[in-house]
């Protein structure tokens, strides 16, 4: 039981077993387990983009798994970040060699992520969470579309395209869905800057002018 009277029924197989079965069935597929230390303990599988469609088809059709129902699909934006890691290093301290813990700073380039929550209606288990990551946030923002495997992802992948700017390759009908055609920029990204004014004709309110001035000065600075 996870928490708060709401059990997850991953039941049949553990996530490690599913991982090894994928690697046995789909040649060349690389699968990593993404940890989750929160009380929910919902860990997920990170797929490599080249084999994602094959893996998804396997997960749907394999008799023991039968993840026939993609409940939820969504995108997440991860900005460039500095990760701090503790590493044990051998060092000479006052003439004696000792093991010392050091914090190493690592640059992690930002990426966009697509997350799918899979359940099985036939076997009534789940969720199995799979994720895919783009190479970066700017130009290499392609991911394979899983709409061919689960039709239920159609509108949700369009939403990821619309609000996050992920391009889902071979999606049947990739258009903006919630924002209007011709809208520029992706409002759900973390670095999205709100427009100064939402009115069609600019209003000369004090607050709006202040915002516009601030944006202009930021642009000059960068």
């Amino acid at each position: 039981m996870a928490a708060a009277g709401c059990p997850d029924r991953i039941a049949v197989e553990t996530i490690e077993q599913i991982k090894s079965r994928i690697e046995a069935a789909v040649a060349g597929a690389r699968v990593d387990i993404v940890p989750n230390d929160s009380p929910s303990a919902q860990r997920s599988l990170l797929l490599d983009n080249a084999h994602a469609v094959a893996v998804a088809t396997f997960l749907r059709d394999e008799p023991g798994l039968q993840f026939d129902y993609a409940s939820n699909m969504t995108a997440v934006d991860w900005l460039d970040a500095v990760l701090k890691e503790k590493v044990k290093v051998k060092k000479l301290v006052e003439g004696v060699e000792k093991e010392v813990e050091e914090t190493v700073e690592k640059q992690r380039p930002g990426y966009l992520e697509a997350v799918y929550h899979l359940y099985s209606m036939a076997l009534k288990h789940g969720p199995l969470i799979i994720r895919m990551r783009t190479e970066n946030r700017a130009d290499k923002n392609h991911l394979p579309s899983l709409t061919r495997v689960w039709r239920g992802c159609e509108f949700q992948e369009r939403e990821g395209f619309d609000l996050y700017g992920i391009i889902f390759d071979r999606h049947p009908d990739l258009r903006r869905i919630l924002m209007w055609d011709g809208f520029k920029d992706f409002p759900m990204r973390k670095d999205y800057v709100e427009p100064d004014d939402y009115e069609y004709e600019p209003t000369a309110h004090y607050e709006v002018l202040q915002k516009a001035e601030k944006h202009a000065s930021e642009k000059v600075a960068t």
Partner: protein
Amino acid sequence: MSAIAEFDEVAAQGRNYEVLPKALDNGENSGELLEVAMGPHHPSTHGVFRMDVVLDGERVVKLKPVFGYLHRNHEKIAENTTYLASMPYTDRLDYFCSLTNNWAYAMAVEKLAGLQVPERAEYIRVITAELTRLQNHASLVGFLMQDMGALGTPLMYAFREREKILDLFEALTGARMMCNYMRFGGCRVDLPEGWLQQANRVVADFPRFVDEFERLLSENEIIMARSQGVGVLPKQLAINASITGPMLRAAGVNYDIRKVDKYGIYDRFSFRVPLGEHGDVYDRYMMRVLEMRESVKILQQALPAIPEGPIIDPKSKLRGFRPKVGEAYARIEAPKGELGFYLISDGSPNPYRYRVRPPSFINLTILEDMCLGRLVADVVIILGSVDIVLGEVDR
């Protein structure tokens, strides 16, 4: 920016709906094709929603739903504020069922933070959720009849019953529709004096209303002629397209999250899951009627069994609430289908990612499949039988 240019190019390629199809597959197309925008201001679209329909005479050749008229980026707003401050905002998603929205969000946060819900609060949650289901289904059937041309009468009968339930909500939460009632690890206030007696009366009276409703509608010749065999949704397509709720069960798939996940205390009540055979509009209507009867059964078991005790987890903090780094997905069986919340915490007071899995948005995926080859008048009732609320579709 090259990324934006590529994006625009992809979006333009996808815009295939602007090209009218030349002929029907069976070569029946004789006359001119006509493109009609149904909505956004159309009485049958239940809000501001548009369908771009291509017609051959009165037959639908192509149909593309257009969303976003009510879009206010609910998810972004929630990511810019604290966990608790989004609770009243969830009321505005599916504004007919604010209490189930509250429950799904509270459950996701409870999973994320590892909070336990006291027994009494679990009972109150089940009771309010089932009352929500009763009033949602009753008014949906009323709206559906309105779409079929039974102007006013069934809807007013349904609203008369809905009003009694909204009175209960008002007595408990202070608001008829925007309840903002649940908190992480419990509920906001305890039941007021005399509330249980009043609820018992409402529940005891409810089957009489369903009987009366069914006498008027279920065997009505016009309703049967308009809805049977219309908008058929095959079982396999329903599963593959992530359809949930009464629509899925009308197609004959036995999947009710109250039974599958047994969240809250649903394993303590005996109730059945009604299933349809044909997956048409009539079956979807029957699902709602039968589910109302099952909800009454659950309420009749829950109301007398409610224990005394606290209504909120003492560990639950209203201020300075920062869940540990991690993520959680929680889902419930809302009246319209599976309502899920997906949260990612980065240890700060605001969620890093806040996602709503809206049932009625995803149930619209197969709207075109159900409408192809049907008449325009059928489109209206097929859409009515999906049961959408635009506050949730557009978010």
